[in-house]
């Protein structure tokens, strides 16, 4: 398994709160192989950002790692020192955030910022500037040399997100994390940026962990998908398998509501009746049981394990289990 780049193994993360421990992530396992694009889908609050901040270890002070490992290139990041983490961030692992209007320093020109993030390189300033211009050109910003001297507010949202992507890819990372990078943009821009990202990914051969609410984008872009629900992985596997033969009722409901076409706009995931259980007080049994119309006795009492339901396909649902055993 040498082609695995990032391996999340049985990760559980809590937030300590006044109401007790909020179990934001429970026994999460999945991996990202070299040069592949893995999508993560899930409703707001299902723990996507917690997962990302755990990987980069840019966590809120009340975060507690309860179990598991985050192996990157074979070594456990949860055991790395802060110094080692800092060396990794922006070099081997980069990130693009959701809101391009907020992610740039408002008082420094784009050029200054792009030169600054090359702080690890000893190259002369002129060379760094040239590289910055090349990157801007690569993400499709016309006249990059002149635009380097402009400030972030002089760019549109789409342009700013392109700049963020340029900055994230500058160090040619092995893993790019994209946290809903196109949610704040309108549909045509979204398509353009996704296409550009795809091209760059092929060129640079980096893996992407792509978080999105938009199933269409996931279907278009990703090789594999991880479906999360209330802090747990409910289904994961090859993108075609997930979309064509979903094995978890939650995934099925998502796809029913959003046929997954990149051109159609779905800013938020479709709402499914029922409520997400309180993560500080998790009930017995399957986490999805209250919203599932196929729930049985067994689902009320026991947590279904995430098990293989076919080649490159895992799901955590007792219904599959019965099919297999029957």
């Amino acid at each position: 398994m040498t082609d695995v780049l990032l391996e999340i193994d049985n990760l559980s993360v809590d937030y300590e709160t006044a109401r007790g421990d909020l179990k934001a992530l429970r026994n999460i396992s999945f991996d990202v192989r070299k040069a592949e694009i893995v999508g993560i889908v899930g409703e707001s609050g299902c723990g996507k950002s917690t997962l990302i901040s755990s990987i980069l270890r840019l966590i809120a002070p009340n975060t507690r790692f309860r179990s598991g490992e985050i192996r990157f290139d074979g070594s456990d990041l949860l055991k790395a020192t802060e110094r080692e983490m800092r060396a990794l961030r922006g070099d081997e692992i980069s990130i693009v955030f959701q809101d391009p209007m907020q992610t740039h320093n408002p008082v420094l020109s784009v050029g200054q910022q792009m030169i600054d993030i090359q702080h690890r390189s000893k190259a002369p300033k002129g060379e760094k500037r040239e590289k910055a211009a090349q990157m801007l050109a690569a993400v499709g910003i016309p006249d990059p040399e002149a635009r380097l001297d402009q400030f972030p507010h002089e760019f549109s949202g789409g342009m700013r997100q392109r700049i963020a992507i340029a900055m994230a890819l500058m160090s040619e990372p092995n893993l790019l994390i994209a946290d809903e990078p196109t949610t704040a943009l309108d549909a045509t821009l979204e398509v353009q940026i996704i296409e550009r990202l795809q091209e760059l990914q092929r060129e640079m051969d980096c893996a992407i962990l792509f978080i999105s609410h938009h199933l269409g984008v996931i279907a278009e872009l990703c090789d594999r998908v991880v479906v999360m629900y209330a802090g747990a992985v409910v289904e994961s596997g090859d993108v075609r398998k997930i979309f064509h033969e979903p094995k978890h009722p939650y995934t099925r409901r998502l796809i029913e509501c959003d046929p997954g076409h990149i051109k159609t706009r779905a800013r938020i995931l479709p709402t499914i009746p029922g409520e997400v259980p309180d993560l500080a007080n998790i009930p017995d049994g399957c986490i999805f049981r209250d919203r599932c119309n196929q729930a049985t006795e067994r689902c009320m009492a026991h947590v279904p394990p995430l098990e293989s339901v076919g080649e490159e396909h895992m799901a955590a649902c007792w219904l599959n289990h019965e099919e297999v055993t029957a």
Partner: protein
Amino acid sequence: MEKSQSEIRIIIVGIAKNPLGFMGLVIVGAIVFSAIFAAWIVPYDPIEMNIRDRMQGPSWSHLLGTDQLGRDTFSRVITGGQVALKVALPAVFGAMAIGLTLGMVAGYGPKWLDNFLMLLFDTIRSFPTVMFALAVVALVGPSLQTVVLVVMATSIPTYGRVARTQTLTLRNSEFILAERSMGASMARILGVHMLPNIIGVLAVLAAMDIPTVIALEAGLSFLGLGVKPPTPSWGALLKDGYALVRQTPWLVIGGGLPIIVATLGFTFLGESLRDVVDPKLRKNQ
């Protein structure tokens, strides 16, 4: 470096575009110029007495008349400006530099350090400046350095608090998280990313603070706690003028007018600087 020079040019051009800012630049420029070249501008030695010519009105030989000791008021006003800047500039920039550093440390560092620095700032601020000045003067005697020291110590908390508030806001901003996720060290975050976001606000504060310090120096000198006679200071001039206002109004004018003009000049400058330091408000370049 050529980068920061063009930055300064942009700021100055930006200020000058605003009519009030332009006036501010002219006034402050004139004060600074006359302070630097005071020795060449003054027609007389500002401390030379000439009993025969005492308390004269304006004339070609004495533009603003003379005082009770026959010293040339115009020469004393110009030299007084030099004294005012010698107090105000080091005091304000010193307080700004120290306040900025402590404020950023308080805002970004651990909670206990923040609490400690805030307590320190509050303690300093709870002393009225003049009381504090009296105490220090009683201890070390009146001098230009004493005034600088007192003013600096009492205004550090103002800068510190503003810098702290700014740092706290920035600390939770998404672009700082983005920098951290790019592997920026604490020094880089504070120095490269936060500092330029804070310095503008503090520069505005400093420009507005200079007239206060000038007035404070004048006040302390007026009370005899500032610079020692016969060194000319606007406050000392005002004090003499006050005593002799029935005999000659020119001393009060000579001491008071520059304080008013300087206050207006620095305030105009500060106001228009405020608009310029925010790049979002900068009209294309």
